[in-house]
């Protein structure tokens, strides 16, 4: 049974290089891993998040045993399964894992029953026919899909195929479940429903889950902890709230939707609260700053347009983080309006609650908003060290 150290996953100095074709290059290749250290706890739902080509899928495939790492160590539940330096590699069929693939990878020549029974027949040999049928039935019931055992995969809808793939992954009760962007081929509504089911299956199955995605909303909904990856390295590790509210670098900030970025200088600090003067501004902005950033250092102010609120009229005298603004074009985003605004001579994106305007008149030339101001809650503004920003510029140029 799952012991206390049961099914944690440990990656130490994991590296994976791909042959670079004809020329030898030092630049990291798409999907390569460049020295990754991760400790994934037993029973955790862990999400690897990043843009395509950041190495998240390669990491997952190394854990599964579908790729051999070039260097480093992988341990599952305390047992080392890959250590190229020691010449050790455990093939995927000898690792106690289940996996859901992006394409579902259901075998078209087998019925739903046979697809789900397959891992039982190989991982738990010697089950009687009745036991087999009971286990398959239980797995299908867990994913909410009993009664379709005799169908072929081609006769199922996308969502049903997804559920069969999930049943096949959990049926042999592996202590580790791997998900490779399993929801990316489904429409938005179905995705939301399956997301909840995935989390429920994780709770009921009781093992560890590792989930790869490029969709921040999925990560937010599913994860206990999130690792943001970039160019084969770990960029930030934390709970969903930490990642989404307190990004540590410009890359993470941009990836999780901080769409206003202003370079400038830290002028005053009071614990975590700090004042920041964006270049060319006459007044400071108050926000949160990491301890590493000292007064006088250059940095980057980041905040979401959703948190920069546009309001009509002149700002109250002396109000913190309130700035006179001129509104430009307005776009309707469904749950709010987004407005282009000019603050201190700089163009920013701000938002306008639906209630604040009836939407009448020309969206692109809104009437009556020339006299306006924006406000920003200090907790919503994050001040990032510029060292990271400089690194970002280098990486982007490469």
């Amino acid at each position, binding site marked *: 049974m799952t012991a206390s150290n*049961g099914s944690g996953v440990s990656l130490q100095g994991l590296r994976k290089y791909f*042959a670079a074709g004809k020329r030898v290059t030092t630049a990291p290749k798409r999907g390569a891993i460049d020295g990754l250290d991760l400790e994934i706890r037993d029973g955790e739902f862990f999400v690897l998040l990043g843009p395509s080509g950041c190495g998240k899928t390669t990491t997952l495939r190394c854990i599964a045993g579908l790729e051999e790492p070039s260097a480093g160590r992988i341990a599952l539940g305390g047992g080392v399964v890959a250590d190229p330096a020691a010449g050790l590699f455990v093939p995927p*069929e*000898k690792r106690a894992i289940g996996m859901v693939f992006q394409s579902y990878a259901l*075998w078209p020549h087998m019925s739903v029953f046979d697809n789900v029974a397959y891992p039982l027949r190989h991982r738990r040999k010697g089950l009687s026919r009745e036991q087999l*049928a009971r286990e398959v*039935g239980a797995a299908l019931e867990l994913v909410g899909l009993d009664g379709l055992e005799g169908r072929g995969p081609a006769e199922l809808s996308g969502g049903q195929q997804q559920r069969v793939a999930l049943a096949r992954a959990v049926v*042999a009760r592996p202590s580790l479940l791997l998900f490779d962007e399993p929801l990316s081929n489904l429409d938005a509504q179905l995705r939301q429903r399956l997301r909840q089911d995935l989390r429920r299956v994780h709770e009921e199955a009781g093992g560890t889950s590792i989930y790869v995605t490029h969709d921040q909303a999925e990560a937010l909904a599913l994860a206990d902890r999130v690792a943001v990856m970039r160019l084969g390295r770990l960029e930030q590790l934390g709970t969903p709230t930490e990642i989404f509210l307190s990004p540590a670098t410009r890359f993470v900030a941009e990836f999780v939707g901080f769409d206003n970025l202003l370079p400038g200088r830290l002028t005053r600090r009071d614990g975590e609260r700090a004042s920041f003067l964006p270049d060319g501004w006459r007044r400071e902005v108050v926000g949160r700053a990491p301890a590493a950033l000292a007064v006088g250092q250059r940095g980057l102010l980041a905040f979401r347009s959703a948190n920069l609120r546009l309001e009509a009229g002149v700002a109250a005298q002396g109000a913190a983080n309130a700035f006179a603004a001129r509104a430009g074009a307005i776009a309707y985003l469904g749950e709010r309006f987004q407005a282009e605004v000019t603050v201190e001579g700089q163009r920013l994106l701000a938002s306008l609650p639906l209630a604040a305007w009836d939407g009448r008149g020309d969206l692109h030339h809104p009437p009556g908003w020339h006299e306006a101001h924006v406000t920003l809650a200090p907790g919503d503004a994050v001040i990032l060290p510029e060292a990271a920003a400089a690194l970002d510029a280098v990486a982007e140029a490469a």
Partner: protein
Amino acid sequence: MSVDTPAGALRLPPSNFRPRRRWPLARLALYAALFFILVWPVLMLVAGSFRSAAPGFDGAWTLAAWTGTFDSPGTGRAMGNSLVLSLVSTLAATLIAAGLAFLSERTDLPLRRGVTPCLMLMFATPALFYALGYAMLGNAYTGSANKLLQTLFGAGAAWFDVETWTGLITVMVLKKASVIYLFLIGPFRALDPSHNDASLVSGVGQFGTFLRIDLPTLTPAITGAILLGVVAGLQAFDMVLILGWPQDIDVVATRIMSFINGAAPPDYARASVLSIALLAVVALLCILQSRLLGRRSFVTVAGKSGGRRRIRLGRARWPLAALVGLYLLLAAILPTGSVVFSSFQPFPGIYEGYSLQHYRNILALPRVVDAIQTTFAVALLSGFAAMALAVSVALLARALPPRRAALLRFVSLIPLAMPGVVTALAVSWAVVSVPGLKQLYGSFWLVTLALVVVVTPFAIQVANASVAQLSPELQEAARIAGASPFRAAIDVVLRLIAPSFLAGWFMAAIIVSGNLEVPLLLRAPGLNPISSVVYSLYSSGDFSAASALLVILLLAKAAIWGIAWAGYRAWVVVRSQRRRRLLGVLAGGSGAPLSRPAAASA
């Protein structure tokens, strides 16, 4: 973690799990087989060119063949002939093929849907059959077409003679057009309709658009097809042997054979030197072609051909259709008809007393019965071996890093550059070079081995195409589910590619059964497949018997095709019935999922 795991969670592997073997045995064996079948013969061919004796005989190392081969006037003339034949026939065939592809794919030509099936049939017909058909049609004295024209328009000199340079080139053009057509049709079909629409919207007419947009887009494909045609032309053998011998027309491939079969003692060293020269030229052209064509090699039918607008031919529709019809008549119907017709004639040139006598006669010959058995055995065996090898290569290539996979694919295409004569020669050298395998020389197995090499590039194409359709994730899912690599290959890959494997096996067997060079050159005693019996009947003047045997061969192929197809249909029906029955049972007992019928796990 307890040791005696109940039906609960799986145990994780122990930390001292045995290291993976770097070179699994199966993979090593496959590499060895590939090396011996594809690379070793070429090496031994080169070595053989320095030997003074035939394969398997004691001899000395010598440079004599290298200095002597190219001096002889016969060799020079054969090389010149090959070049002229290849270039002229390719250029003419490309013109015809491009015209046909344009008409059938881009215009509203009547009957255009019949063009591709017709040309596919021609492509599949062995050159031997073709050459014989024309010989019987256009022989100056007994050709049925000559006779017919003489009867209609008054007796006189023969209207034409197919057994001349002009006749040979004409026949080659007709046949080669079908090959090149099949190469061009994919690219013609894959043309992006939106490019055309953009040109039409810019005010350029239909034909202007074809000339300025389509044709430049197709240039690489057409150039590639021309190179392919030239390669095939340099390797020409059967047609030259049958239509060229009355005029003593010699090309490189027939010259290589006459070094061995026509000289006493056989001059294997010179044959090897000439083979190497041919191999080198053809390999160069092949590399050039793959550079030009890139990954689009062989018959690829890709792209969306959906609702594209076709060029309206207007009043030219029917005249052009008549022209296409004339080509099909000349290139497909007449040669086939003449073979069938002459198999009923008592003798070429005699137009009465039609009977089944020839069929009775040849079926009474023991050597014909032997030949039919041999052909079946050789064709089925070598077709199967080639497909098995090809599927292994395709699967292995997928698991390898890109560069090693590319090397593997390149190696598997080596025989593409080797005409059958060269393959037979090279395989002979290879077999005798290995102690213990010498007994194979002159046996059924040597012929089979050589034919496996001949048909491997074709098999590789079929295997690559079918393996490429399988997502690697299907195999990986089986590994994750606990199946070993071998088990995953059986449960998932083999089951899914079985239909294309069978189709590839069948087509490879057909290609092999029409091969004349290998049995002629290897001359295994007492081992004559149908193709070499047909040839010997023909060259001894028994034209009608040769025709009858060819018709039997054709009928046998059609019968196998029919049986295979019917079997496949039956299997599909049975499978869907089984699934329906299963569904019915499950639906009936849906209230109690635990009492699931045993049929579900069958």
